[in-house]
């Protein structure tokens, strides 16, 4: 059996000490293979965000182990985790989190800047990433000049431009209207299907989670259910 992309074993996350301590995760076991499209659902306070932060190597578990491609993440220091994020992870946030007053092109180039790519290659990769999310020719616009849906596309392009192994999306449609939400979901589905990109998405909307092929439900810091979705939404007619 090949090494899974993500392997969580008994992961806990505790905030604070003593009686005021809050146990966000109480022992999560989760394994995700490459090429999967997983939706993590749950009510607020169920530990979704904590789990996402740990998966994204922004945070480390208080207990248990997290292996990313067999690599023990909890043993990495701050800079090593930053390098892992830089090379293997892409983030999409609910609030888009683009740099204000900075053109779409420059926003998308940002991760490449930290990888030390040359000018030419940076421009080229960023243009290609923008084209892949359907924003060809929009590179010179600043976030303020783009609609919410377009901003989220820029954010997705920024996450994709480094060719990550894992795309983490935290409520990617939370700030968008229904039509825009479905467009974004169709985009993520397409990336997963056509490029084999592993996508892990946190959402509390069932019709967005319906796009995923696997749905994990968290309740009070524990996995309550982990089900396959054999008829995901947004797939072309021919394959369903």
């Amino acid at each position, binding site marked *: 059996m090949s090494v899974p992309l993500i392997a969580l074993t008994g992961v806990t996350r505790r905030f604070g000490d003593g009686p005021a301590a809050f146990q966000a995760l109480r022992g999560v076991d989760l394994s995700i293979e490459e090429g999967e499209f997983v939706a993590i659902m749950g009510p607020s306070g169920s530990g979704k965000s904590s789990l996402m*932060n740990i998966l*994204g190597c*922004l*945070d480390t578990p208080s207990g248990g182990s997290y292996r990313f491609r067999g690599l023990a993440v909890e043993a990495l220091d*701050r*800079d090593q985790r*930053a*390098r*892992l*994020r*830089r*090379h293997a*992870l892409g*983030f999409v*946030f609910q609030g888009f*989190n*683009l*740099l*204000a*007053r*900075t053109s779409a092109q*420059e926003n998308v180039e*940002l*991760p490449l*800047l*930290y*990888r*030390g790519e040359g000018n030419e290659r940076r421009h080229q990769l960023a243009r290609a990433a923008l084209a892949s999310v359907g924003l060809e020719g929009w590179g010179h616009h600043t976030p303020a000049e783009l609609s919410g849906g377009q901003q989220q596309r820029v954010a997705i392009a*920024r996450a994709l431009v480094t060719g990550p192994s894992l795309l983490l999306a935290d409520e990617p449609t939370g700030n968008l209207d229904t039509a825009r939400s479905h467009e974004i979901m169709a985009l993520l589905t397409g990336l997963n299907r056509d490029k084999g990109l592993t996508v892990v998405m946190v959402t509390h909307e069932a019709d967005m989670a319906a796009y995923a092929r696997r749905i994990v439900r968290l309740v009070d810091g524990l996995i309550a259910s982990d089900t396959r979705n054999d008829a995901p939404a947004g797939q072309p007619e021919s394959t369903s």
Partner: protein
Amino acid sequence: MMLWNAVLLALREIRRNLMRSFLTVLGIVIGVSAVITMVTLGNGATRSVSDQIASLGSNLLIIRPGQHLGPGRDSAGAAAFRTADVEALRSQVAGLAAVVPVSSKSVTLVAMSRNWSSGVTGTSRDWFATGKWQVAAGRIFNEAEERAGAAVCVIGDTLRRELFGGQDPVGRQVRVKQFSCEVIGLLASKGQSTMGNDQDDLVVMPLRTVQRRLTGSVDVGSLMISVRDDGAMDAAKEQITWLMRERRHIGPGDNDDFSVMDTRQIAETLSGTTRVMTGLLGAVAAVSLLVGGIGIMNIMLVSVTERTREIGIRLAIGALEREVLLQFLVEAVALASLGGLVGIVLATLASMGGAALMHVPYLFNPGINLLSFGFSAAIGVVFGYVPAQRAARLDPIEALRHE
């Protein structure tokens, strides 16, 4: 991430907030331009003083009563020279081209129903050659007039303008106190000297005329001595000192109560004054540089708080701690250096203008320009470090949540 990228990012950030960036570095701009302007003008003034005195020639000695000239000058109590001293020097010291007595007094002059306050210089005919004065019209007083203390005078160009309305003054009368004096010559203009001294604002009369009619004594204020041979300066100085000590009854082991200085020493003493002033003004300006640095730190701290979310984004997409540190540090340094550059440009303009106004030469001083620039960049490092470190140490999760 290469340093160049950090510089690029920093410049982009500065351009994005142009107005705020400018206000942030205003302190540095003012500090740098103040330091450079002060030092440049000070150097110009120093040079001007030296040049002016050096233009009198290297074979000139000036003897004054009292020990010091310049800062801490102390001539009080020391007796003035006498006309007899002049004769003694002339006859007993070998190798002197001229011994010129100089006695000055401020007076009010009246001519053609105008009046003007000026300084009267009582001296001998050698004064004109020794001080490198040219006669523009008329003549200087002759030996007979000098001996007799005749009521004749040679005036500077400023007096021609102020008293005679620019007309030819030769042959006209000017009233000095109770006596009337005939203008026999006009000196060629030497122009303004350092510190706005008008060198052409003077009346020259025979020493005896001044002694008899104005001061009423045989005192001589100071002596100018020109030595025939440059190489004999030290010997001449020694002999003069020896003779004057004897004439003034200074016992062995007592200090001289007069000073013999050559032009180089005078230039040094005078420029010592301007150098002290330059130093003080420069120090005040340096303090304003420091204040400018605190301004940068303040704005950088605000900027880190304001851009917490941006820092979170950068950290989330894989920026290392030291890359964020570098970014903010480079930004502070770039801001401060740009401020330094603007300051240098301003200082150059201000120094040129100031030099023209003060009639001193404009001397570009690469040292002070480089030093100020380096100092402002260093201020960027020092005052940018704390905010940069604060930015780099942010927790990405907290930073992303920051509104």
